[in-house]
């Protein structure tokens, strides 16, 4: 077992992990942060996306031991402490950017990473950025629309409904 310590959503977190413990398992099972979802466990679906030192990564394909000393952000850290949704989460609600909601944590975390690097993306850039995030309920249109809206752009001309 190895001791790991990291900052998760601004708070210190530590635990004893096996070499094979995935970051997604550490977050969900050791820290109880079950908002990070494991959809495919094969690094394809993106439901497990979190930020490690500011970069979006698939937490099912990173060892917890690799995150020792890192700053980790998960979906639980996105809303304000009083529960007020951040701009991306609010836009997902306003534009019906989810149906069953399983992929939503990863979608929101990927969107946050995109908007940090590219505050006013085009629709094509949003779609390209989400190529590693799979939603099986809807057609992505409202997810794209929500992210465009969260970036402060007018989405009335986007056909998605």
């Amino acid at each position, binding site marked *: 077992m*190895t001791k790991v310590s990291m900052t998760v959503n601004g708070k210190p977190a530590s635990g004893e992990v*096996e*070499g*094979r413990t*995935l970051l997604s398992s550490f977050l969900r099972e050791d820290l109880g942060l079950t908002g990070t979802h494991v959809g495919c*466990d*094969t*690094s394809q679906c*993106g439901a497990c*996306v979190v930020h490690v030192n500011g*970069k*979006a*990564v*698939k937490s099912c*394909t*990173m*060892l917890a*031991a*690799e995150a*020792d000393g890192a700053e980790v952000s998960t979906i639980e850290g996105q809303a304000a402490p009083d529960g007020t949704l951040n701009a991306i989460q609010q836009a997902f609600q306003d534009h019906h950017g989810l149906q069953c909601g399983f992929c939503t944590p990863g979608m929101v975390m*990927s969107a946050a*990473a*995109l908007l940090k690097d590219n505050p006013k993306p085009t629709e094509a850039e949003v779609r390209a*950025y989400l*190529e*590693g*995030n799979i939603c099986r309920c809807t057609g992505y249109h409202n997810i794209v629309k929500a992210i465009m809206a969260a970036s402060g752009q007018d989405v009335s001309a986007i056909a998605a409904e």
Partner: protein
Amino acid sequence: MYNFEFEKPATIADAVAALGAEDAQALGGGQTLLPTMKQRLAMPTKLVSLSGIGEMQGVCSNNDGSLSIGGATTHATVAAEAAAQYPALADLASHIGDPAVRNRGTIGGSLANNDPAACYPAAALGSGATIVTNAREIAADDYFQGLFTTALEEGEIITGVRFPVPEAANYQKFLQPASRFALVGVFVAKFADGVRVAVTGASEDGVFRWSEAEQALSASFSPEAVNGLQVDPANMMGDIHGTKEYRAHLIGVLTKRAVAAAS
């Protein structure tokens, strides 16, 4: 996956020492190795992470105009930091996998794995790059030795890759839409002394140089120069995504597109 011991050294020397243990395996970004281990197709007793080694990170220009990239540099960093000096290489890096994969996957990991459909082998072979390890330097022409097979010895680490920067270059990838690997990918690079064409995704023997096209393009760097040239389908991969003949045909199409985009 089976359990293993985890080690994260801070220097190349310590990593080499750690890899001396029996059945130890180097870990780059883990974007291939971890899924492989989840399927229990690999069971190393120890993983030696290369991600904490500062001397294996980053992109820098050399005095001779070539570009050196640390073996532990992620695809996302290559995409951002090589864009000014070698745009075709940066563009290739920016289309590997998806954004989250590019934040973890490394150039050294990709080249050490030598997946027959990976992008970086085409760039390294097409550029005539030099693979730099902890022990020696290996020319790309000698490095790639077939499917998932390279000149690397047991425990040898790719510490960096040195790319000569061509006058013009371009990479064309025909996506296998589910995996986002190349169904066929062609890297064309035009140097003062000739043109190199490297093909990934297509051959049963992994990445290879298409020498007939190289000769024709060295004489005349235009898409039409490739007219009438055909790769023999016999040694191509064939599967539900594309037959041998289809892949052989795509090589010609993508080579022309790469030349048109590069010139």
